[in-house]
């Protein structure tokens, strides 16, 4: 067991690397990232598009596998698990909240929230009750039997939070949860996440909005696949330092402190890859963990 301070490290990540594509199209999405997350933390993960935030979240959420490196979740080596065990682990320990809500349109809100429990094999009555309870927590009891098309964005995101909570997961991963919401709904959703954090849940939130860091008690800033800034802040503090750090990092990134970024990225005018380009690379060069890409990685080092 590995302890830091009072808490047992919930997530231990050591030198995690993720490489997409082969040959000349190789992209290093994560470059030997190490990170410990303790139970009860609310971490805001920031960084420009293409900095590897989402890749890191996907690996922590076991939707993706690292090219190499170590990922322990609750002292278990998750990255070495088979796909089925990973899926079960994901079901039991991870609650996802997406920018675009991702509720199934054909199911009612209640059925959507109960779905993770269905995959667990919980009987129908029991899981509907649990889902009803989760919806109560997010204040959507009156929308139980509505379809997702009948709800506003803010309500949808609250339903998605209820779905993430219904399994009592050890981590809640929110990938830009307010990205598609107006400011009022965004505030409601953030307060909700804050409440969830206060009762002892661990929250990992990706965001572009520095003002949202006030809800977090730790801020991680990522750039080009590395964590370049990691600091604890007081909850409720609107962090000017974060804003400054964001600006300064953007400016200073030209001097190439991160020597092991791939050669292709160096030729670009900005370190920050445009989002579309980055996406399409990741998509087209899908085969991961191939020997070739590993080899490529070693060469770039």
């Amino acid at each position, binding site marked *: 067991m590995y302890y830091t301070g009072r808490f047992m490290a919930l997530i231990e990540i050591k030198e995690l690397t993720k490489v997409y594509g082969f040959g000349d199209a190789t992209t290093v999405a994560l470059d030997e990232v190490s990170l410990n997350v303790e139970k009860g933390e609310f971490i805001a993960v920031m960084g420009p598009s293409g900095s590897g935030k989402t890749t890191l979240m996907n690996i922590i959420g076991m*939707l993706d596998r690292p090219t190499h490196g170590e990922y322990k979740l609750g002292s278990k080596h998750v990255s070495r698990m088979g796909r089925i065990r990973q*899926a*079960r682990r994901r079901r*039991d320990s*991870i609650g996802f909240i997406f920018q675009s809500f991702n509720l199934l349109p054909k199911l009612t809100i209640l059925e959507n929230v109960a779905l993770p429990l269905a995959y667990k094999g919980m009987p129908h009555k029991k899981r509907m009750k649990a889902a009803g309870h989760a919806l109560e927590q997010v204040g959507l009891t009156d929308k139980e039997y509505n379809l997702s098309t009948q709800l506003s964005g803010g309500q949808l995101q609250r339903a998605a939070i209820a779905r993430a909570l219904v399994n009592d997961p050890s981590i809640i991963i929110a990938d830009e949860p307010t990205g598609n919401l107006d400011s009022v709904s965004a505030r409601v959703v953030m307060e909700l996440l804050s409440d969830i954090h206060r009762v002892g849940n661990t929250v990992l939130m990706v965001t572009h909005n520095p003002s949202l860091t006030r809800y977090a008690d730790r801020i991680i800033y990522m750039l080009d696949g590395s964590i370049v800034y990691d600091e604890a802040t007081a909850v409720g503090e609107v962090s000017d330092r974060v804003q400054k750090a964001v600006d300064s990092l953007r400016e200073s990134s030209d001097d190439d402190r991160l020597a092991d970024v791939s050669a292709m990225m160096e030729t670009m005018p900005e370190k920050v890859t445009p989002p579309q380009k980055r996406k399409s690379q990741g*998509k087209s060069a899908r085969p991961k963990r191939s020997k070739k890409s590993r080899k490529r990685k070693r060469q770039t080092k």
Partner: protein
Amino acid sequence: MIFEYFKMATASIRSARFRSALTMFGIIIGVSSVMTIVGLGEGVKQQVATQVSEISDSLLVVRPGKRAAPKPFSLDSIRFFNSATGSLSEKDWRDIEGVEGVESAVPIGVLSGVASYDGTEYSNGNIVASVAPLPELLNQPIEYGEFFAKNHGNRRVAVIGRGVAEDLFKENVPIGKSLEIRGKKYVVQGVFEQQKSGSFSVFNVNNSIIIPYDSVGPEDGTVQISQIYVEADFAEGLPVLSESIRQSLKTNHAGQEDFTILEREEALEVTNGVFYQLTVFTAGVAFISFIVGGIGIMNIMFATVSERKREIGIRKAIGATNVQILGQFVMESIVLSSFGAFIGVVVSYIANGVIRVTTDLQPVTTIEVIAIVCGLSIATGVVSGFLPAAKAARKDPIESLRSQN
């Protein structure tokens, strides 16, 4: 979990009703046609079996032509008796009558010609020259009048089927009226009962005109003996009797055995055999629509899987294993095919009902056929759903979540 898959499947099928209905169409056609055809075959088989139990078990049938070794599913076995005619003569019949142990021998002599009454011709009937006790041997009762006696001689009389009475004479009991064959008048003295379907008789009594064998003179054209029914004195002696008839006929035919002697069951076997092969063949053709239906399902499942990428991504993200995704989509395919099968069974019941009402065939649907058809359609669902479902299960969750649909 299987029930969960079922619920998911029905939900997504319900949300695309029209498409699902179209998809099921192939299976519906396959199931209903297989069931109707097999039902018809089964029905005829049962009707014939009923008929055979009613007729005498001391009956032999002599048919022209040598019975070939049964070669299943070849054209030969279907046209066997149809092509071989003419090898039996009047002498053969008279000789059989003389064989010891023969109670009576009745020839079915087919006469070419057209009967007419009052200027109208009856062209779609048979003219059969025969003797008593034909009705008893065919188990075909007379409704009005009577059949001509054995020692009737050559007086020109006729016993007609129901169809002839209705179509030629336009009345139910035209007894006493006379019809004309080749310029000679025959007085109607009897009308048969409506012939039951699947009758033992090889010809359709309903549209036949039976005239005494001896009334046909040389000027009336040749009588082709298509078969001779032989009634034995006692049933136990049939094999022996059959052998003595064979010897007698062989002498007539210069040692050639160009005829076949069948016992009651064997005679039916031939009729049944032909029908059975037709049934199997048609059912085989109908089974192809299962394959077509299966391909239709597979096609639509592939389309569904690529249309529902995002759903797959979401399900995976909230903890569905690959096996669970596979199960969901295979179940969807099974539900499609088995619901199609259910509708197909209903359709075939309706079709059978229509056949019962409109024709004199009695299709029979057996539990076995339903079981086989349902099993087959579920198998079709599994087979055609597996590849698309495996594709769905293999989908990368991140990529799927990123997709627009």
